[in-house]
């Protein structure tokens, strides 16, 4: 079995996914990813004729079954305070977050 995802590639993904991992988690995840990739490689070997289109959904949505577009109308939610009550830090009508990293362009 080959290790297609090496530690550098793995660490790059971890940073894109906005995770921090301890060594034990990292080892487990990298190993499982490589195991899954070995399974996925079976797909790559399937000979497909040129005319097989990709299917983003199994069920086709012909017009007679598709949902009709909704009227473009603003419908206010009944209890916006229930949504705002979920915010971890909320003050004076604002959602509070730590400093947003920025750089000054010259």
């Amino acid at each position, binding site marked *: 079995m080959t290790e297609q995802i090496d530690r550098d590639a793995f660490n790059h993904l971890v940073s894109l996914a906005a995770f921090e991992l301890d060594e034990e988690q990292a080892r487990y995840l990298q190993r499982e*990813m490589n195991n899954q990739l070995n*399974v996925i490689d*079976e*797909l790559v070997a399937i000979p497909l004729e040129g005319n097989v289109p990709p299917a983003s959904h199994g069920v086709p949505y012909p017009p007679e079954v598709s949902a009709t577009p909704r009227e473009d109308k603003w419908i206010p939610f009944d209890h916006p305070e*229930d949504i705002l*009550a979920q915010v971890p830090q909320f003050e004076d009508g604002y959602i509070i977050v730590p400093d947003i990293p920025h750089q000054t362009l010259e």
Partner: protein
Amino acid sequence: MTEICNLSARDLVAALKKRQISALEILESTLQRIAQVDGRPGTLNPGEQTTEDAQRVHAFITLTSQRARTKAEEVDRKLAAGIDPGPLAGVPFTAKDVFCVSGTPTTAASRILSGFSAPYTATPVARWEAAGAVMIGKVNLDEFTHGSSTESSAFQPSTRNPWDLTRVPGGSSGGSAASVAAGESALSLGTDTAGSIRQPAAFCGVVGFKPTYGRVSRYGMIAFGSSLDCPGPLTRTVTDAALALQAMAGPDSHDATAANLPAGEYLDRLENGVKGMRIGLSPDYFRITFPDPETGGYEQRPVPAEFEDTVRQAAGLLKSMGAEIIEDVPMPNTRYGIPAFFVISRVEAASNLHRYDGVKYGYRTDQPVQDLREMYRKTRAAGFGLQPKLRILMGMYVSAAQYSAQYYQQALRVRTMIRRDFEQAFDPAGKYRLQALLTPTTPTTAFPIGAVYGNSVLMQYADQLTVPANHAGIPGISIPAGFAQDGLPIGIQFLGPDFSEAALLQISRAYEIATEQEGWRQKIPQAVQQNP
């Protein structure tokens, strides 16, 4: 006499409407059963598991007894006033904890949603409640539905199989299947992305129905793989599955993928039998392809003999009732279901899980942070368990620009091939002209707790016989078909063309009627026997 909580939804509604029992009595009997068998609910800080924990089911994360009492009283008031309380009046149900229900915690069994109280209610729950059903709680699952055993829940103790408390209930709708099997509810609302309704239904000896993609609205359901996820019922009887689907199917202006088709009449033809129906068997569902962890190669094995025998006995019964059994239906792309799922579901999961960032709802790290990015990292590191992390990382890898053609686009094309297998089998003008394909639901019975957990590849292969229906979008139902040598339930599965729910229910009911008198139908789960 049969305890009230063991009655089917249909019998409960009938007794209620004749005023033989009240909705409150149904609720009390159900809560009593829960107190008897369930043990402590799953929590984020469970401490050590005790000997007593090992003897309980642990289906629940949140019990909503007060809400249930209010709903049951409403049903009783309507009855007293001569108002029709609805087709599911007084029927207790549980909801997999991925369904938002206004004013209740909704966790997806993840720490990252701790503290989240849904501000709105999912359409399937709202429709069951509008039909008079009474939600008694939210039940456990694999974290974000990412698993086949319920063990990956962040809320422990995770659910145990009521038939053998040392075994998993399956998953990801494990709490749903266990709560129905143990008489803790008549119905449960689950979701199925690769088999997450049908596999736990088979493991726990109940009925599990994944309808056609788009048959039931996904509004208010926390997403895993949006092109694959389907809400559906878990019940103890086929008639209850028909009743439950009837109450929740149909168009929904809140979900653009909900098909613009009215619900079918699932009860009308339910007992019309199978005379003249064409039901297929496929050799591709009597073998499983297994990755060998040592070599990285593949091995094909037949499913255990008792599984094939059970399916063939069912085919024999259906034949004796007038169905035509068509052998050797080729479904050659079945074996690619798991590899294609590994790609498609991961890409969709990664996309769906980026929203959990500690800003708008749910968990936020309480550690000191320098800036927003560090807050994201610390929140997501502590908030997600290993299985969601694995799916996010994998989804990002296979959809990266340089790999997308090789993996994601290829998987979507393989999905077309899987769909074509079914189109050819079900084509009314084709060679096979099937109304349904009959298969085993799973290649094994419920496995011991801890036996597979951690091996993400082997765990996924538990869904090998169920995942093709998710790729194709077609409906599939798993129904109980007896017990294996190891004393655990075996399920059989019927798969049919798009929107053929009525036919699948009709065939399933015919099998149920034909086996009604069999001894195995009288068996009582260990969890109920041992916890009087």
